[in-house]
């Protein structure tokens, strides 16, 4: 086993970036994720690996620094929380349009507006349905532990480069702030300049070397037919993600008569609710989507044939439940339960909701 450390989720993400061999992080403080940049500044990654860390003047500037670095073939990341992620949407849309890799962490807090600094999952639509302007998707990973905050920093970077598309890690104030033990993987070395030339020199703006054609990074296509072709190309990447990248975790689904679907901290709470329900003789299972785009539609559809009803548990007024309903295709009863505004549901409330909205409803 690797090195074990007790860390906050936010710190685990920061350490994950360093160990994944990231070249740069550009951020701006906002509660509840400021520990990311605080940890990075304290760790001096420029001494450990040569990684650049810069506190930008705004979330807008930070995501555009990510754009510039990514467009020059570097492995770059940022992080923020809901209001700050709204500010980054312009840059994220440009990155998706210009096909740039990069990792963005959202430690979600309650909204809308300035909202609250307490945990929430109300940014699901923004994360999975686009977020900024235009037809695009992000690959969305939903960590449910400090360990996954660490792991997904590296996994996110890998997937971002595989698809040349931004990857969003959709976390929340619970996962970002809670401390858990984290198994730290070995330090990966950063790519050398030569390796970047060799791997990404065919598209990245690293300087027009060796008399080759110039590389251009842009999201502008003024001819409608070209713009449509570009959109179709982007769509083909999203289709490939749906074919290759669906990730989820199942608990007690073998004999389940009912099912919870929940991600992130709601999945952790739903695990406890599942135990309480089973103690009462209700055979309930849990499906935890790990990727929110691509969504585990097929798996949920299969389980919908097996169970009598599904409760989607989310700290929102009912966002993910729409994807659950689409996946279920009317095969089973579906309901939503959750709290909003930073209120965290208890396991008992979830069991009650199952009994009232699904079993007795």
């Amino acid at each position, binding site marked *: 086993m690797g090195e074990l450390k007790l860390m906050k989720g936010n710190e685990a993400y920061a350490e994950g970036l360093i160990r994944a061999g990231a*070249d*740069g992080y*550009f951020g701006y403080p906002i509660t509840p994720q400021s520990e990311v940049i605080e940890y990075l500044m304290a760790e001096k990654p420029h001494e450990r690996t040569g990684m*650049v860390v*810069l506190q*930008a*003047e*705004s979330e*807008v*500037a*930070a995501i*555009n*620094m*990510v*754009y*510039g*670095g*990514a*467009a*020059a073939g*570097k492995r*770059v990341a940022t992080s923020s929380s809901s209001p700050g992620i709204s500010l980054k949407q*312009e*840059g994220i849309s*440009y990155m998706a349009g*210009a096909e740039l890799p990069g990792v963005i962490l959202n430690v979600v807090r309650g909204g809308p507006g300035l909202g609250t600094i307490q945990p929430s999952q109300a940014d699901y639509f923004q994360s999975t349905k686009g977020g900024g302007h235009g037809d695009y998707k992000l690959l969305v990973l939903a960590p449910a532990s400090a360990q996954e905050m660490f792991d997904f920093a590296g996994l996110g970077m890998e997937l971002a480069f595989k698809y040349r598309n931004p990857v969003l890690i959709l976390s929340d104030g619970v996962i970002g702030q809670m401390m858990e033990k984290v198994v730290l993987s070995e330090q990966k070395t950063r790519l050398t*300049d030569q390796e970047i030339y060799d791997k990404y020199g065919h598209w990245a*703006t*690293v*300087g*027009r*070397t*060796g008399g080759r054609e*110039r*590389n*251009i*990074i*842009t*999201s*502008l296509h003024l001819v409608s037919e070209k713009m449509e072709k570009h959109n179709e190309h982007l769509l083909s990447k999203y289709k490939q993600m749906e074919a290759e990248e669906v990730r989820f975790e199942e608990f007690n689904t073998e004999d389940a008569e009912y099912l919870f679907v929940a991600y992130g901290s709601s999945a952790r709470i739903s695990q406890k609710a599942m135990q309480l329900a089973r103690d009462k003789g209700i055979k309930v299972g849990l499906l935890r989507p790990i990727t929110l785009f691509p969504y585990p539609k097929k798996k949920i559809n299969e389980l919908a044939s097996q169970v009598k009803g599904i409760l989607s548990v989310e700290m929102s007024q009912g966002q993910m439940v729409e994807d659950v309903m689409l996946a279920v295709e009317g095969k089973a009863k579906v309901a939503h339960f959750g709290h909003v505004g930073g209120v965290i549901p208890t396991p008992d409330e979830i069991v009650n909701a199952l009994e009232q909205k699904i079993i007795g409803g």
Partner: protein
Amino acid sequence: MTVEEIIKNGQQVYKKTELMTDKELSYCPGCGHGTAHRITMEVVEEMGIVEDTIGVAPVGCSVLAYEFMNIDMQQAAHGRAPAVATGISRLWPKKVVFTYQGDGDLAAIGTAETIHACNRGENIVIIFINNGIYGMTGGQMAPTTLQGMTSSTSPYGRDVERMGNPLKMTELVAQLPGTYFVSRHAVHTPGNVRKAKKAIRKAFENAIAKKGTQLIEIVSNCNSGWKMTPVKSNEWMVDNMFPFYPLGDIKVDGKLVEK
């Protein structure tokens, strides 16, 4: 006699830099952008730094600068070019990074990114084309539009009481400790073109020497937006723009120039 024959006989006295593509410029005839592009690319070619130069194009008339400049380039969101350039420059400190921005891009929506990049002293070159108007969207008032100057959104002239004052971004950033060389030029006469090119070269040299942020403003005409002939627009620029945006060095070697 064909062009090839003239060149064979050693008669060629001038050649378009290979760092300008053959693509037809999208700029209006008479506009200063083409000349500003050319001298920037000539500097890159003459310094032999094409393999190490990365440019950032803005939003505005010069959004397609990457179609004309034959080097690796990125297109940035409106006003964000200095942040984009910061990202490149921090991660590739050995590269030469420049932005090419108009006044709508740099002095309005990108004010924060410009001031903070300059204040941090990012080792980048900012080429700032100021024609006092939003050209691409059809001649609307810009932050740099002069008092009394007409535009499609100040059709009776800029009334500073209601519309605010024109902004001198170049003087503003010269006050910041991160800027090293800040100079204002024009490209409407051969003499001015030579001076502007010299300043751009100095800016690139300073950026390579890690002296901080270099900003070269080029006061330019916008004959379309100003609704004038090219000749008339240049005369109007001399009579009206230059008094408010005087040409010359504002900060040299990190020190403000005494006026």
